[in-house]
């Protein structure tokens, strides 16, 4: 069952590449109020808004990018990164509005070179929860089946979806919220009441059956919705008003609202009487992501693989990436490192990025140059090797990269692969065995020499006495 019948040309056009260019994403909001004033028109946006387009060389040298008109060779040929983004295929001024898309294309390339697997946001609050402590050991991929779904299955597992029909109330402005109440919520009142009545009838039936079962009687007839009196229902509503947890659950399920981060007390009171452990939404704190949680930047499921070195064999640690200190540590804020075009917090813990005064452990480990103050003497800034462990995409579209301290051995190998050090011995290896023989030989040689000297002395024919 296909859609409306279209002409052959129409069908062809629908499958064409120009038609498959997605609509541009909205302009990313300014993440920092203070930095917002310094926003530049040419800065790299936190996420790409337009599709990146390229063209083979044979066509590109003729200006043919498959669009309305040939492109100027001056800007599209004199570049080593022939990626463009099309803002408008044709403008009123009869030109194609385009710009270079090398920034995001190369960022993507570099990010994929880091081989980072995307994981669901890590919730540091849920320390007490046993499941979450277990998942702290390894990051959970966004592509796992129990979280990577969008359809409504009916059940508590639905909270772990990343896409919901209803909005995330915490992100709405007051105006949006009022409009949502008036336009979407109010018309559904009658429907919700009918749902509640059904639920009340079911609850009464269940409790009656339970009582009957306990007393050994036969189960009474099922309570229907029509049997419920108005007074009964009003009482139920009043009770529900006070039982906020149940009400919230009912309402959010009815409207399919994105889960909000619930206070710890409530969630424990609520879930204590339930037998099944409620899987909590990983997006409760920050809100559901606007796209798939991987944001399409990486499709790796895991980073649990070993890298193979051509000479040294399988490596326990992955090849580290060189990071630049872009912002020194300021107060409690960790220093910022730039890795592959992404700014990330320096790895926490006792390492060269975290100066700890008065600690015994940090005595032997020096602190990296640009951590306490911005390093202005090193060319290009202070750099250090780090290992990218995982990344998430926050609701504003920013890639949050998590770094780990790089293994010293992996650092040495990385430096050697860049030709900075030489640790590989290409020559024949000599096993050093401190043997008794060699020592004996050396003594014997010296003994011989001494004997010779003695003989010389005895004979009196030493070379020393030849000359005079």
């Amino acid at each position: 069952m296909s859609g409306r019948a279209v002409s052959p040309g129409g069908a062809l056009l629908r499958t064409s590449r120009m038609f498959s260019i997605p609509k541009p994403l909205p302009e990313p909001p300014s993440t920092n109020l203070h930095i917002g004033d310094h926003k530049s028109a040419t800065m790299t946006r936190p996420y790409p808004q337009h599709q990146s387009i390229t063209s083979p060389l044979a066509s590109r040298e003729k200006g043919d990018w498959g669009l309305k008109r040939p492109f100027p060779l001056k800007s599209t040929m004199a570049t080593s990164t022939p990626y463009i983004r099309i803002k408008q295929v044709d403008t009123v001024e009869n030109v194609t509005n385009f710009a270079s898309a090398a920034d995001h294309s190369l960022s993507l390339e570099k990010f994929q070179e880091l081989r980072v697997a995307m994981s669901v946001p890590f919730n540091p609050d849920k320390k007490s929860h046993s499941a979450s402590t277990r998942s702290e050991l390894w990051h959970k991929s966004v592509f796992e089946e129990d979280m990577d779904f969008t359809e409504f299955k009916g059940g508590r597992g639905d909270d772990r979806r990343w896409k919901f029909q209803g909005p995330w109330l915490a992100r709405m402005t007051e105006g949006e919220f009022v409009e949502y109440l008036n336009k979407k919520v109010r018309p559904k009142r009658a429907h919700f009441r009918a749902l509640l009545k059904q639920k009340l009838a079911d609850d009464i039936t269940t409790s009656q059956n339970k009582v009957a079962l306990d007393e050994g009687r036969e189960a009474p007839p099922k309570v229907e919705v029509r049997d419920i009196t108005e007074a009964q229902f009003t009482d139920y509503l009043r009770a529900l008003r006070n039982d906020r947890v149940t009400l919230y659950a009912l309402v959010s399920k009815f409207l399919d609202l994105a889960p909000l981060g619930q206070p710890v007390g409530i969630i424990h009171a609520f879930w204590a009487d339930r037998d099944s452990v409620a899987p909590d939404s990983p997006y409760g704190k920050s809100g559901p992501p606007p796209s798939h949680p991987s944001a399409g930047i990486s499709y790796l499921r895991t980073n649990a693989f070993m890298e193979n070195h051509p000479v040294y064999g399988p490596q326990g640690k992955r090849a580290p990436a060189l990071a630049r200190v872009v912002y020194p540590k300021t107060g409690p804020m960790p220093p910022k490192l730039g890795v592959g075009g992404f700014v990330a917090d320096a790895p926490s813990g006792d390492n060269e990025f975290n100066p700890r005064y008065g600690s015994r452990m940090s005595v032997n480990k020096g602190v990296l140059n640009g951590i306490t103050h911005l390093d202005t003497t090193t060319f290009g800034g202070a750099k250090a090797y780090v290992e990218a462990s995982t990344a998430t995409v926050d609701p504003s579209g920013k890639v949050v990269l998590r770094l780990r301290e790089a293994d010293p051995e992996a650092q040495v190998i990385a430096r050697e692969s860049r030709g900075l050090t030489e640790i590989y011995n290409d020559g024949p290896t000599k096993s050093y065995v401190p043997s008794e023989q060699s020592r004996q030989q050396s003594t014997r040689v010296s003994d011989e020499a001494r004997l010779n000297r003695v003989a010389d002395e005895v004979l009196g024919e030493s070379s020393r006495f030849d000359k005079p």
Partner: protein
Amino acid sequence: MNVQSAAVRHGRRALSSPLPRAALRQLSTDLKTTTATATTSNGQSQAWPSPQAAAAPPKIVSSAKKKQKIVEEVIMTLGANSSQEHHGVAWTKPHQKGSQTLTPAQQYAEFLRIQRNTRSLGSDVEKRYVPTEIISNPPRPEDITLELLMASQTHMGHNTSLWNPANSRYIYGVRQGIHIISLETTAAHLRRAARVVEEVAYRGGIILFVGTRKGQMEIVTKASELAGAYHLFTKWTPGAITNRDVILRMQGTRVVDHLDRELDGFDMFKGTARPLMPDLVVCLNPLENYTLLYECGLKNIPTIGVIDTNADPSWVTYTIPANDDSLRSMALVAGVLGRAGEAGQKRRLQDAARGEISWETSPELSRHMRKEVQAAVTKRKEVMGQMQSNIQGFTDEEMKLLRSQYLGEQQQEVSEDDLVNMLGQTVAAEPEASSEQAASSEWTMGVMLGSIEAQLRGVQESAAEIEKAVKGSS
């Protein structure tokens, strides 16, 4: 080396008495196996491992002479191969390949044989799309497909706010802020235009390809080369059609026959003919060539134009709704029309070779030819009249004969020379009839053809003789 050391080195073999034959054979066979396994590391090889040899301490040799002697003695040893055998590089030796041993030459021959037999296997990596192909080898009208049109970007119109509503029937929809021209419409209109070009070429019409945008020079020149047409890739000189008598005054024309061979004898016409107009104009960018299209409209010259969504389709006779900005799209349109013209020209020349001429002589040229013929006829008449008035005393019969010959000549294509010959014969037969007036009038005919003059000069001489005779007699 003394005897003791020899005994140490060669052990039992050096000292024991000669062995019986069987034992010797046994010894020799054993020897072979041991030499294969024995390591001859430093020249002091031991054919027979003996407990004494193993126990002997390494002799420290002090002089070079002694060393040499030891080496000599070792070489003399029958039991072991003391010297290193010379081996070439590994690849120069025969190798075991499967069950047979092959020399390098054989291996190479085998490699060549396998390569020869497997060369045709596997896949060929070919380039499906070569961008220059559309200029060097454009598609024919029957090769137009919707896919080709879409790949050539013919469907991309202009920004929706730039449109001309007259093009709404060609527009399929809006996408990415631009109008999308229906591929089917483009294909149909392009085929129709190709048909027009082909027929005009078949009828021997003059086709003009116009593309004045940057990059279209190559396109229009190639298309016109294919179609045997004319091209314009610079600005159209305004008035080159309507005011062509002035603008194209110095431009020459050619008169050709049905096989496109130039004809002689039309210098008069070439000097006086008006400059030609095209019979069909193909315009790739009507927006910039409004003047040309307007002039064509004034002179009823049919035009084919590529109409983008911002162009006015009423400017041209035959529209091709397509993207006029993309060079690839324009190369496709012009290439298809060029191929169509090529087909028309080919068909015309084929028919002409069979004798079927698909075109008619232009009215100016036929008028000129008729006029020329008329002038020749009147001239001849004049000559005839002159001669008739000169020659007195024709009998009625002779006059009738002359008249019938003259009329017959007009119909039966009797050449002037024949007529003059006949006249000359008649005159020679009646020399006394000619008078002095004839001679005087003869001199006034300056514009007569040379051959006629030559013929008539004889007549004049005979008349002069007659005159002398008459004078002499009188």
